[in-house]
């Protein structure tokens, strides 16, 4: 790229600038910029990451592992995995349907629809939780009726799922739409003229083309779903052993000064995050050509 091939000979030059190509910064400027980047990221990102694990292991492995074995901790882990297992497939299905609808058909109001799908990115998670409470809470007409019928949403699992789907709403669709626009409609149309059914076309033509983008979006969605805090804090009611997810449990433990327990659970969530990050990086390295051109999230 911009790496200069430095001439070995030609030492006749009395001007050192001769060895620098037009597009290169001076070695000193380079070194300073790299140092700032690495140093800044070290303080801002690597230090907190290290802090999670050192705090968790302050009293040794045994204490950390034991704290994760408690009944409340186990129930929090189960709940978070359950919520993720419901919210992510829901979102993936929505993302595929929305991307299909938006890229395969021309209709009025498309731009507005895309804005609506993007909207959750710009709404505070706390406001999202508030909206759900106002819609389904016991004091609203709809919520009151649902509670009376035995299907409470707020302070129960459906509310947490809904909050999680809200905050992760755009991830899959946003990843799929650019990829499907780029690929156009010709391949699907070809399959149809060859007599394939709609489902067959989708499964054998579209899906193979979008699988890496789908996986990518799903990964981002999973990371966010497991870690969502603000929206869930509002709708869950924070009932220990029932609606306390892992992030909520971290908050409760931390506020009770149970530092090792809080950081042990945080370390476990961080482990999940690092796994998704690794998978995501691997995808970017190996299948960059089949992902959306601008990877923003």
């Amino acid at each position: 790229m911009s790496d200069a091939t430095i001439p070995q000979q030609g030492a006749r030059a009395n001007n050192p600038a001769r060895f620098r190509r037009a597009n290169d910064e001076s070695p000193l400027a380079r070194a300073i910029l790299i140092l700032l980047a690495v140093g800044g990221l070290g303080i801002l990102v690597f230090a907190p990451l290290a802090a999670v694990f050192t705090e968790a292991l302050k009293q040794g492995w045994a204490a950390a592992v034991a704290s994760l074995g408690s009944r409340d901790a186990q129930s929090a882990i189960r709940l978070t995995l359950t919520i993720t297992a419901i919210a992510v497939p829901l979102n993936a299905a929505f993302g595929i349907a929305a991307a299909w609808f938006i890229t395969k058909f021309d209709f009025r109001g498309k731009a507005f629809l895309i804005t609506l799908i993007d909207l959750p990115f710009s709404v505070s998670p706390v406001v999202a939780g508030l909206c759900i409470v106002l819609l389904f809470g016991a004091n609203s007409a709809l919520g009151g009726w649902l509670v009376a019928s035995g299907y409470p949403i707020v302070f129960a699992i459906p509310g947490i799922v809904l909050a999680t789907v809200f905050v992760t709403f755009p991830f899959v669709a946003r990843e799929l739409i650019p990829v499907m626009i780029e690929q156009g409609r010709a391949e699907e149309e070809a399959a149809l003229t060859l007599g394939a059914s709609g489902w067959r076309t989708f499964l054998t033509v579209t899906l193979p083309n979008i699988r890496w983008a789908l996986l990518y979006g799903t990964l981002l969605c999973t990371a966010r779903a497991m870690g969502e805090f603000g929206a869930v804090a509002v709708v869950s009611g924070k009932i220990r052993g029932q609606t306390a997810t892992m992030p909520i449990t971290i908050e409760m433990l931390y506020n009770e000064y149970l530092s090792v327990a809080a950081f042990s659970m945080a370390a476990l969530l961080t482990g999940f995050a690092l796994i998704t990050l690794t998978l995501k990086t691997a995808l970017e390295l190996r299948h960059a050509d089949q992902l959306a051109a601008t990877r923003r999230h």
Partner: protein
Amino acid sequence: MHIDIDDISKEFGTTAALTPVSLSIPSGALVALLGPSGSGKTTLLRILGGLEFPTSGRVLFNGQDATGLTVQQRRAGFVFQSYALFRHMTVFDNIAYGLRARPRKERPPKAEIARRVNKLLELIQLPQIGDRYPSQLSGGQRQRVALARALAIEPRMMLLDEPFGALDAKVRKELRQGLRDIHDETGLTTIFVTHDQEEAMELADLVVVMSMGRIEQIGRPQDIREKPATEFVRDFITT
């Protein structure tokens, strides 16, 4: 200004882009570097412009060693194959760029910059397009703006890399004459790179045929056509 290329070689890693070549270009000449891709013609042009540095050898401007001059010090009007216009600037700002980039002491006053830019717009016969952005121009217009931008710095020579490469056949013919006219008007030593032998023969006073990092032949178009010095030149100009 006359230019001497004295035993210039260039290696990229282990591959040799130029085996030592020497060439003397008289002041005011219009020279074509002609050859297939990979012949080293663009590398030679970039070495003259100060965008690459030779592994060995010297470049002389008017007999003085210019090898160590930075690209900024060379004051070569360079026209890139892609034109490399600044997309976020108007045509006017593109052409004025080199004058405005000068250190404060040498920078002409605002009115003088405007006068010179407008004069150049007239020279390229596009006096009305100063306010437009490059994305609003046709390919031929972009090429002429790139030419004007390079001329604005009062260059000591003009260096053009495949100046007609990105244009369709009809525009290409028109602009050839345009380049010839500008050359005759300014009298600047002008060197352009091309892989199109017809273009080289029609436009240049002096044609330098290159292949695989070597100079095969230097001569006037008719000499090359009538007396090709090597097998390669014969093949290349007949295809």
